[in-house]
């Protein structure tokens, strides 16, 4: 990831900033310029709760470049309280102890160190 891109995306990666449509109330993550439900363009920034439940997960044994030192690690689909579904790494867990429906919460962690700077971003951990 480039430095400008990282800084531009920091609000959503580090504070889970999404958008709420003022017209129909739909919440989007990542943030959108146009509501995908009603087509409205009047959207406001909103920080999401960062809590939800694990819908599905898998364990990565053979990681891509930049994640070698973390393997084995889990990634999963998390459904937030607001209804949004997010793909994320699951931190602070024994992958064998994960269960669908587990309550999880957001944490900010090192994602990877590439290109001379450290990328911080969200992960989820079991509550």
């Amino acid at each position, binding site marked *: 990831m480039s430095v400008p891109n990282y800084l531009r995306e*920091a*609000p959503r990666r*580090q*504070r889970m900033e999404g958008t709420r449509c003022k017209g129909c109330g739909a919440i989007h993550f990542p943030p959108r310029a146009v509501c995908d439900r009603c087509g409205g363009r009047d959207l406001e920034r909103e*920080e999401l709760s960062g809590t939800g439940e694990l819908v599905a997960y898998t364990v990565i044994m053979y990681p891509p470049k*930049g*994640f*070698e*030192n*973390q393997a084995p690690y889990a990634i999963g689909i998390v459904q937030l309280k607001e209804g949004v579904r997010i793909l994320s790494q699951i*931190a*602070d867990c*024994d992958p064998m102890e994960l269960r669908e429906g587990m309550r999880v919460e957001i*944490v*900010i*962690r*090192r*994602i*990877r*160190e*590439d290109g001379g700077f*450290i*990328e*911080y971003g969200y*992960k989820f951990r079991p509550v």
Partner: protein
Amino acid sequence: MFRTHARIGIEGFGAYLPKYRIRIRDLPLAHGSPSPDFEKAICGPDEDAVTMAKEAVERALRMAGVGRGKIGSILCGTSSNPYSGKPIGTILSKALGMEGAILAADINFSGKSCSEALQLCLGLVGSGMVDYAIASGSDSIPEPGGKGATYSSCGAAAFVIGRESGSSIASIEGSSTWVMDALDTWSVRGSAQRRNSGRFAERVLAQCVIASVKDLLSGLGLSPGDFDHVVLPQSDPKSALDLAKRLGLKPEQMEAGFVLPKAGNVESLSGLLGLIAVLDVAKPSERILVATFGSGAGSDSFSLLVKDAIEGRERGDFLNQVSKKAYIDHKAYLKFLNRNSGGSA
């Protein structure tokens, strides 16, 4: 002794202790150690001083109930910034949505960096420069072993400081500091290895802490017996107990704040985790004495009076973290340390 014109209060506090623990007896350097039941916290493979500080600050802000827009300063005491040329304070300000007209800075190079940040926050709030300030500290273990590093631990703490009001959970009655330029424990730039001058180091610790505590007590007209809880630097069990004896403290005064056996010694906090453990259980009107120490830096001490508002706050978070843990062995410990000292996250 330092005393601010306006009375200063603690509005909220928070701590973060990583989930992973290693028993001190599982460290090769600790063979024959007199404290085999002690354990310390270790950063996970994707954690560092930044991620831990963020957790502690978020918890402190949540307890304080202070809007982020009201924070005028965020200071972070650390000796393990993952960057050599970028402050943690600014990374935190962005991650917490507080970028802009805010003083964000790091305090480095000392085992008492967090208490130095706290002293500065008292000045910032006391002078009226800012309404609220955050003093935080965060450290990961700098090296796998070495003399004096047996109890070195990972963790973070944060305090939200404001002018004393009905919502303050504790008031800060006064603070003191004692500076002494001593080569007791040090490291040179470019080398992770720490050097220690042995018995001389213990003497410097006692001299500095006793001097700062005496200055504080004489300024306030108090004696060690006036405090319900006392938190002293906890670099190892022997020095903490020796100090308590020399200050004439009773074991029950030390009990709540002695977290070394369960949490280890998070260096830049120098015992401030102990203050958080005390605040987790303290009752209104109790008085707390806290003294910190940084090798080659000196000692800070603070006197706090717990206020009624503490009863209405949700507490016990730190003690909950102390009990929520997963043990790792020495092999995993070395692997985690390697990842946290420059390897890919």
